[in-house]
């Protein structure tokens, strides 16, 4: 890389004491950056629903109060955004995809999932990377209701992949037989997105 190095500009940190926890090319942040592709949807919970549809025997949906009745888990995970920030030890409470799928008969062909959100955002994840506790629909962050600017009322959290896959303002999962690309995957971002393999862009 040729060109100027700005004298005295140190950029961002990879502190030695946590370096091993930071995926390649990532930097530590201690705040919680707000990034989005559009205005906050502000869906009131009395109009909110979560739906599972597509290649399933029959679609299922939950209202907000029904969703609140589902068993939850609280997890603490590290999250990495493709824009290079990583935040350690984030605490979430939500419903695992495993729990949601107890109520659904998925078609054998439905091996891939498109998460869809208010505002039109989508992101694709293989089913076997959402099950076994790898994915959940969270509505609390840090012991408080999830703030609208961070994806509330509820967002998908898939911490082992880059955080663009953790769709904010999620409204459902659509089962598909192909790994169709979602919003960012269809415009140059990697179809899979594993931060430990630095799968940022298609072609990586």
């Amino acid at each position, binding site marked *: *890389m040729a*060109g*100027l*190095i*700005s*004298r*005295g*500009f*140190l*950029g*961002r940190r990879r502190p030695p004491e946590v370096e091993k926890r930071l995926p390649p090319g990532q*930097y530590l942040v201690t*705040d919680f950056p707000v990034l989005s592709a559009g205005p906050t949807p502000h869906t009131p919970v009395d109009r909110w629903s979560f739906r599972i549809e597509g290649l399933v025997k029959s679609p299922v949906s939950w209202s907000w109060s029904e969703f609140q009745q589902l068993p939850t888990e609280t997890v603490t995970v590290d999250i990495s955004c493709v824009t*290079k920030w990583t935040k350690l030890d984030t605490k979430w409470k939500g419903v695992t995809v495993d729990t949601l799928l107890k109520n659904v008969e998925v078609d054998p062909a439905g091996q891939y999932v498109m998460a869809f959100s208010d505002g039109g955002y989508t992101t694709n994840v293989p089913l076997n990377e959402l099950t076994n506790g790898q994915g959940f629909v969270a509505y609390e962050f840090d012991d408080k209701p999830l703030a609208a600017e961070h994806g509330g009322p509820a967002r998908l959290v898939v911490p082992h992949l880059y955080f663009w896959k953790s769709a904010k303002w999620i409204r459902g999962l659509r089962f598909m037989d192909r790994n169709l690309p979602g919003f960012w995957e269809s415009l140059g971002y990697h179809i899979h997105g594993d931060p430990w393999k630095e799968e940022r862009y298609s072609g990586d």
Partner: protein
Amino acid sequence: MAALEWQLGTVTTIQTETPKTKSFFLALPKWMGHRPGHHIDLRLTAPDGYRTQRSYSIASAPELTGQLELTVDLIPDGEVSPYLHDVVMQGDLLELRGPIGGYFVWDVSLGGPLLLVGGGSGVVPLMAMLRHRAAQHSTIPARLLYSVRTADDVIYRDELARLAGAGSGLDVLFTYTRQAPAGWTGYRRRIDAAMLNEVIKPFGLAAKTYVCGPTLLVESVANLLVGMGQPAERVRTERFGPTGS
């Protein structure tokens, strides 16, 4: 027109404008000139290759040749402004490209009357316009409505007073939204319809308006102006993002 390329400017002077604002004069051997309202993109590179970029409006008028002035607010948890404020020294090189934009520009050839509405550091591109107007000895009627929190936040105070002298055709009106100076008899609130009505009154529907500052201020002012009957195509806007971003 030549392709937009990164070039190096040398910091010649750093000037403190307010407790949180500094101006940086950069000598540019490859400068091509600009129009008032244009901005530049500034890029910083760390030793490990990490890069970050910000846009800054050019504060100087195009009549100041071979160099340009940037006026930068210090954002306490920011990435770039603390570096500019606390680390950069005279003689340092900064990488930039420009001039950029074209929609949010004004020069005397576009005529007036001219209404400029600025919030906080949104005044910077408007200052380039006023400095150009003065350098051209123009008496096109102009008004600047400048919204700040306190008197400490006013950038270019003395120069604005000089530019708005008798016979200049320029009025500068302040509104203090948090704390006005002692004895202040002017506006002391967020910009609202009543204030805009009074400020724009002499210009009627003929004003060319430029609004710049935090997104919420610009949205509010632009909506109010259009709601008051100002032709939408004569109200130009530039949103900076959050207050102090």
